[in-house]
């Protein structure tokens, strides 16, 4: 049955939210421009009503779309494309923003929330600020409008409420227009992670928050209140910096846990596109604080605040227009919105630029020379360095854009992004980070004490010495030899030491002011954490088997991956690594179940335990229990030992999902205080193709007799008559027997149960039994009642194997602790600034 109502309602809400946003823009614009007080009140009231209505409609869209996903209405493209019946509940939320439409909606939702908050808290700024807000909302609402303008062949926006039959031209719809698929396509497995439930909302809240300072800045320029806008904009800038930073870090953490590229940051265009605006946001934050204290660098602040918002729009354009094409592995596909996105970007770029140029002369500027010993000077240099740091990332990230522009003017360009992105960006960013750390460490002294040349030496001497001592200790203990890393450690230690000094000094006077110092200590720890975890990341699975692929390649290649056969330990990099077998994950219990401990059923989502299942000393299931599992996930138990001690047991995952493009590996991480052990599966046995079995070897054995199969000791324990096969009762004339053969594996005992069936006293059937982990197949070939012997057919194959890559990431916890401190610092500073009002 088609549920037309909910989709129509949703689409109606979309159109209504677009119209109300447009009307609100107009009302607030009139309110801003009228001098008549009663008329002003009239338009304000209209605008306010309009925006609140708009917010209600936005909420309505969200609820309608979520209903479609949650109720599995697969007649809708959005539910079909992003969800499926077996998707766990918490990931239904992630479906919401897997598609572009949903993520626009999320963005719009946050801006609506922020708009409502501003309406009730910023009465003096309401009219101009909300004009900008409503205008931005109008643009975003147009992205999901899904309306075709009659006459012109122009489609505006892509609606999330489109029906599957309208979205896809599959022949089935011409035969059966009311066809509804039984199940959806499912959520991209990489997004089935708790970080993906909270990372996008955080990031989009960060996006939305950049609009607040921008709107205040525009309002200030428009209303010629050039300086007054800074006070209300500052706490929002702090909040934006914290939330956007947190969103980026969550993304990095997700990548570390879920993607198997072996790290948290890959300098992919998608990451760069949010990293650059965040850097500029941090720069603007510092200049705004400086302005509040000493009335300098207003023009610079204005340009920075505007740039942040424009860069957010630019990053949206980059990641969603499809322009990155060959440059990024994971950008959104083109929804045909590139034109609209470009209009959105260019409109605000030109409008903001025009307003700044128009008012430039009137913006107050100081002519007096700033002293090298003033805090303003150091903040200014620091902010400039941050801008250059962002610029260095922006220029190469935009290469696909240059190619496109050249193509439009008729030239051909074959420029490609740098071949080794990580190496390329790190080389530059590292030095920028060193510079920023040194500047901010020094800047802190100037910030809290007005010092001249003479006093400076005295002030800086102690921290300098302490820095050098701590630095020397770290260099020696951690054996840092590369000069670049030495510089980075020095800068990191310096920023920590100098800010600890400030913290002690300021904290004693007024603890509420110590947010800045704490945040800066966090930055220092982040730098050191990044340096050690990335710079000293060590491949543990370095291959030393001496197996060469072919002579022509020589030995120059480092083999970072390791082939592990089941139950065959290998020594590498101080660890003994062993693959212990494939595991399944029960749906309702924590832990893992061995594939050999369960028998499959006709329902792929259910398996039956063939013995009591014990995981880490705890009994999970009794024999014969039915266990619900995720059939698409296979986990590989990998044990790392140092001597007799188990260093880590890891369960990296492979998810098999044909409709999402195949097989997706996810790592598993064993967390330690001084280092993380990180493992992912690079390749595994192909489960689809039938394995190649060796020739059948026949043995004649008696009950209790031992024999060898694929080098394992086996014994025929008993042969018994059975009355049903896999739940099917046998007919009266049928005879079936089952042999029980015990095989001793390295760690486990396995039971093989081949069967021998005689139907209607003449037709003979043999059901072989496979022990996958051991690579063994046993068939009961014949029964010799005269000698009490049985003929068994034995086949062996290559044992189960897996190829893994394992890495050690030292001191990664320093990075996460630093991140936490950064957030604490931000929160403290924010509380203080919000309370100032």
């Amino acid at each position, binding site marked *: 049955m088609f549920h037309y109502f909910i989709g129509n309602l949703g689409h109606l809400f979309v159109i209504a939210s677009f119209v109300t946003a447009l009307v609100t823009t107009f009302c607030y614009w009139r309110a801003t421009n009228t001098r008549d007080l009663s008329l002003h009140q009239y338009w304000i009231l209209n605008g306010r009503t309009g925006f609140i209505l708009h917010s209600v409609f936005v909420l309505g869209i969200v609820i309608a779309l979520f209903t479609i996903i949650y109720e599995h209405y697969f007649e809708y493209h959005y539910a079909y494309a992003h969800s499926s019946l077996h998707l766990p509940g918490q990931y239904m939320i992630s479906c919401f923003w897997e598609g572009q439409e949903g993520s626009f909606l999320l963005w719009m939702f946050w801006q609506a929330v922020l708009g409502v908050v501003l309406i009730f808290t910023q009465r003096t700024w309401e009219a101009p600020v909300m004009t900008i807000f409503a205008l931005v909302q109008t643009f975003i609402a147009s992205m999901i409008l899904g309306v075709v303008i009659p006459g012109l062949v122009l489609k505006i926006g892509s609606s999330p409420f489109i029906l599957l039959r309208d979205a896809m031209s599959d022949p089935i719809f011409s035969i059966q227009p009311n066809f509804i698929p039984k199940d959806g396509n499912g959520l991209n497995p990489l997004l089935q992670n708790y970080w993906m439930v909270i990372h996008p909302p955080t990031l989009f809240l960060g996006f939305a928050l950049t609009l607040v300072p921008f709107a205040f800045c525009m309002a200030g320029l428009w209303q010629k209140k050039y300086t007054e806008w800074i006070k209300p904009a500052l706490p929002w800038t702090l909040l934006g910096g914290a939330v956007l930073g947190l969103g980026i870090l969550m993304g990095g953490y997700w990548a570390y846990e879920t993607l198997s590229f072996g790290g948290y940051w890959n300098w992919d265009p998608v990451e760069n596109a949010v990293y650059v605006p965040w850097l500029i946001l941090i720069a603007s934050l510092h200049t705004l604080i400086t302005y509040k204290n000493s009335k300098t660098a207003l023009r610079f602040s204005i340009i920075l605040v505007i740039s942040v918002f424009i860069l957010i729009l630019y990053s949206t354009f980059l990641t969603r227009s499809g322009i990155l094409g060959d440059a990024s592995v994971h950008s959104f596909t083109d929804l045909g919105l590139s034109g609209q996105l470009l209009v959105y970007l260019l409109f605000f770029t030109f409008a903001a630029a025009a307003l700044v140029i128009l008012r430039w002369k009137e913006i107050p500027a100081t002519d007096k020379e700033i002293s090298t010993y003033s805090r303003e000077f150091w903040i200014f240099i620091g902010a400039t360095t941050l801008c250059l740091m962002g610029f260095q990332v922006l220029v190469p990230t935009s290469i696909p854009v240059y190619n496109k522009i050249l193509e439009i003017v008729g030239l051909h360009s074959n420029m490609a992004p740098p071949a080794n992105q990580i190496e390329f960006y790190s080389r530059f960013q590292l030095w920028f980070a060193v510079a920023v750390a040194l500047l901010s460490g020094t800047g802190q002294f100037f910030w809290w004490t007005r010092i001249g040349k003479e006093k400076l030496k005295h002030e800086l001497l102690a921290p300098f010495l302490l820095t050098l001592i701590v630095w020397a200790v770290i260099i020696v203990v951690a054996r840092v030899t590369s000069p670049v890393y030495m510089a980075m450690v020095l800068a990191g230690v310096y920023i920590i030491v100098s800010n600890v000094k400030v913290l002690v000094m300021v904290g004693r006077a007024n603890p509420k002011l110590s947010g800045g110092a704490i945040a800066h200590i966090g930055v220092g720890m982040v730098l050191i954490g990044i340096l050690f975890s990335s710079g000293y990341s060590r491949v543990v699975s370095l291959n030393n088997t001496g197996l060469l692929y*072919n002579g022509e390649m020589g030995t120059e290649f480092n*083999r970072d991956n390791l082939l592990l056969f089941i139950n065959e330990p290998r020594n590498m990099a101080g660890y003994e690594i062993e693959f212990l077998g494939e595991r399944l994950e029960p749906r309702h219990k924590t832990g893992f179940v061995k594939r050999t401990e369960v028998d499959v059923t006709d329902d792929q989502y259910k398996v039956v335990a063939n013995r009591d299942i014990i995981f880490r000393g705890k009994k999970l299931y009794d024999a014969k229990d039915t266990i619900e599992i995720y059939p698409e996930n296979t986990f590989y138990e990998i044990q790392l030992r140092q001597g007799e001690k188990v260093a880590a047991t890891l369960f990296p995952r492979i998810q098999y999902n044909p409709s999402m493009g195949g097989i997706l590996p996810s790592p598993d991480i064993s967390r330690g205080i001084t280092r993380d052990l990180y493992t992912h599966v690079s*390749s595994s046995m192909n489960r689809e193709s039938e394995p190649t079995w060796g020739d059948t070897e026949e043995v004649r054995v008696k009950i209790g007799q031992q024999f060898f199969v694929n080098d394992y000791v086996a014994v025929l324990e008993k042969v018994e008559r059975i009355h049903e096969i896999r739940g099917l009762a046998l007919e009266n004339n049928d005879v079936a027997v089952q042999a029980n053969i015990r095989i001793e594996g390295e760690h486990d005992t396995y039971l093989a149960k081949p069967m021998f069936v005689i139907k209607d006293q003449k037709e003979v059937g043999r059901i072989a039994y496979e022990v996958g982990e051991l690579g063994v197949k046993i068939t009961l070939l014949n029964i010799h009642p005269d000698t009490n012997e049985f003929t068994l057919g034995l086949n062996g194959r290559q044992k189960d194997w897996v190829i893994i890559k394992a890495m050690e990431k030292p001191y990664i916890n320093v990075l996460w602790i630093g991140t936490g401190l950064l957030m604490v610092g931000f929160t403290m500073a924010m509380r203080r600034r919000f309370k100032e009002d």
Partner: protein
Amino acid sequence: MKKTHIVAILVIAAAIAIIVSTAGDASTYVTFDQAFQMAAVGNKNSIHVVGDLKKDAQGQIVNLENSPDNLSFSFVLLDENKKEQKVYYNEPMPPDFTRSEKVVVIGSYRGDLFVADKILLKCPSKYQEQKLNAKV
């Protein structure tokens, strides 16, 4: 000259340096013939080649060779001029390799062999399914 002017000059200089270095480090999209010529004149830069996997009439990928230990593999790629080239990749075969429609290899020639340092797979089906895989 004011201090801000000195800073401005330094910033401009740094910006120019960044642009120049980007231009210098940027890779290029080329064909195999161009890549071979670059290697022949001693240019060791990594370049991008976009191509398709070689397939037979039935659409099966041919000349795909896994190493005996499965730790590396080689394949034949057809660039946009339909030139065939054997490409070696010193990593296990990515699981979805055979499903990809377009392959971007980043690397350089060593002798007659193209050695890829990195492979980008373009699977259009990954995020937007083309056909309904409906179970009726």
